[in-house]
C-alpha cells in the first residue's frame, strides 16, 4: 500500500495533514520518533555568577532550560553553543536579552519573561545550549505531533431525523441532509462524542475510515515542522537498519 499525504490546513505554526493508506503503528512510530529521537538545541548547563532577583538559582535555570533555541543544520547531537545573559534592574528580563556567541543560533520567541529585577539588582549568567534528542528531557522535543482516525457517522434504522445531534455538535460539523445527519467536514471532528450521547434512540455511532488519519504537527522548539519530520523518519530508518544488521549477524 502506498502512503499519500495531503495538507489540510495551516494555522500559525500548526499544520494538519491527511495521511491515507497507513496504519496506527506507522503513524505512531513517526510521532514517537519526533518526540524521542529528533535532536534539537536547548539550554542545559547554566553557570550563575550573580543572581539578585527573587527567583532562586534553580528556578532561573529551569526557566532558561525551557526556552526555544533556534537550531542550525550544521549542528550534530552533542554540539554546544555558549549564550550569555547580563542585565541590571529595574526591568523585566526577556529572552531577547540573551546574547548568543554564534550568530546562527538564537532564542526564537523574543518576548518570554524570564525574571523581574528591582533597583540595583543584577543577574549575570553563562549557559550552554546542547543538541540532544527528546529522550533525555521533554525540552528537546522539537514538535508536538498528534494524530486521530477520520470519523464518519453511522446511522441505524432507528434514526427519526430529530436533529438533536446537529444541535449537540460543539464544532458544528453535523448537517441534516434529508432527515439524515451527515458530517460536513469530517477532518474538523474532535471526536468528543457529544452527538452519540445526544441521540435518544441510540441510532448514531461514530465509525472510522481504516487507514486514514489526520496528523497534526506543531513546531515548538528550534526546528521547523519539516525538519522535525525529516529527522524522525531518518531516525526510524537508522534504527531499522541497525536491527536488520544485527539480525544478519545471527546467521
Amino acid at each position, binding site marked *: 500500500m502506498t502512503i499519500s499525504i495531503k495538507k489540510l490546513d495551516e494555522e500559525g505554526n500548526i499544520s494538519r495533514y491527511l495521511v491515507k493508506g497507513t496504519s496506527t503503528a506507522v503513524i505512531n512510530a513517526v510521532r514517537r520518533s519526533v518526540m524521542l529521537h529528533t535532536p534539537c538545541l536547548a539550554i542545559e548547563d547554566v553557570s550563575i555568577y550573580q543572581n539578585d532577583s527573587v527567583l532562586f538559582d534553580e528556578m532561573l535555570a529551569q526557566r532558561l532550560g525551557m526556552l526555544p533555541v533556534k537550531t542550525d543544520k550544521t549542528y550534530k547531537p552533542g554540539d554546544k553553543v555558549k549564550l550569555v545573559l547580563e542585565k541590571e534592574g529595574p526591568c523585566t528580563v526577556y529572552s531577547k536579552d540573551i546574547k548568543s556567541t554564534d550568530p546562527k543560533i538564537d532564542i526564537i520567541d523574543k*518576548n518570554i519573561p524570564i525574571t523581574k529585577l528591582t533597583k540595583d539588582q543584577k543577574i549575570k549568567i553563562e549557559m550552554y545550549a546542547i543538541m540532544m534528542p527528546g529522550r533525555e528531557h521533554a525540552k528537546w522535543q522539537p514538535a508536538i505531533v498528534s494524530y486521530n482516525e477520520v470519523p464518519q457517522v453511522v446511522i441505524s434504522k432507528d434514526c427519526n431525523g430529530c436533529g438533536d445531534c446537529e444541535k449537540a455538535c460543539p464544532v458544528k460539523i453535523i448537517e441534516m441532509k434529508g432527515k439524515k445527519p451527515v458530517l460536513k467536514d469530517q477532518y474538523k471532528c474532535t471526536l468528543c462524542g457529544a452527538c452519540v450521547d445526544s441521540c435518544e434512540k441510540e441510532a448514531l455511532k461514530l465509525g472510522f475510515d481504516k487507514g486514514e488519519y489526520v496528523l497534526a504537527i506543531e513546531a*515548538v522548539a528550534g526546528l521547523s515542522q519539516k525538519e522535525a519530520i525529516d529527522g524522525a523518519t531518518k531516525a526510524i530508518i537508522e534504527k531499522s537498519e541497525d536491527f536488520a544488521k544485527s539480525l544478519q549477524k545471527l546467521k
Partner: protein
Amino acid sequence: MMVPIRCFSCGKQLAGVYEEFKKKVEKGEKPEKAMTDLGVKRYCCRRMIFSHVDLIDEISKYPR
C-alpha cells in the same frame, strides 16, 4: 511566581503570549476570545494561562 514558560502537559511555549493576553483582558476583551486569538487552543494550555497568578511583583518587595 512568574508565568510558566511551557505548558505542563503538551510542552507548548506560552510565556511569550501571557503579557499580551493580560493587556487584552485589561482592555475588556473576553479571556476565552483573547486566548483563541493568541493561538492557545488546547485546554491544557488554556488552564496554564488563566489559572496563573503573577506574584513576582509582591515578592519583589521583600528581596533576599
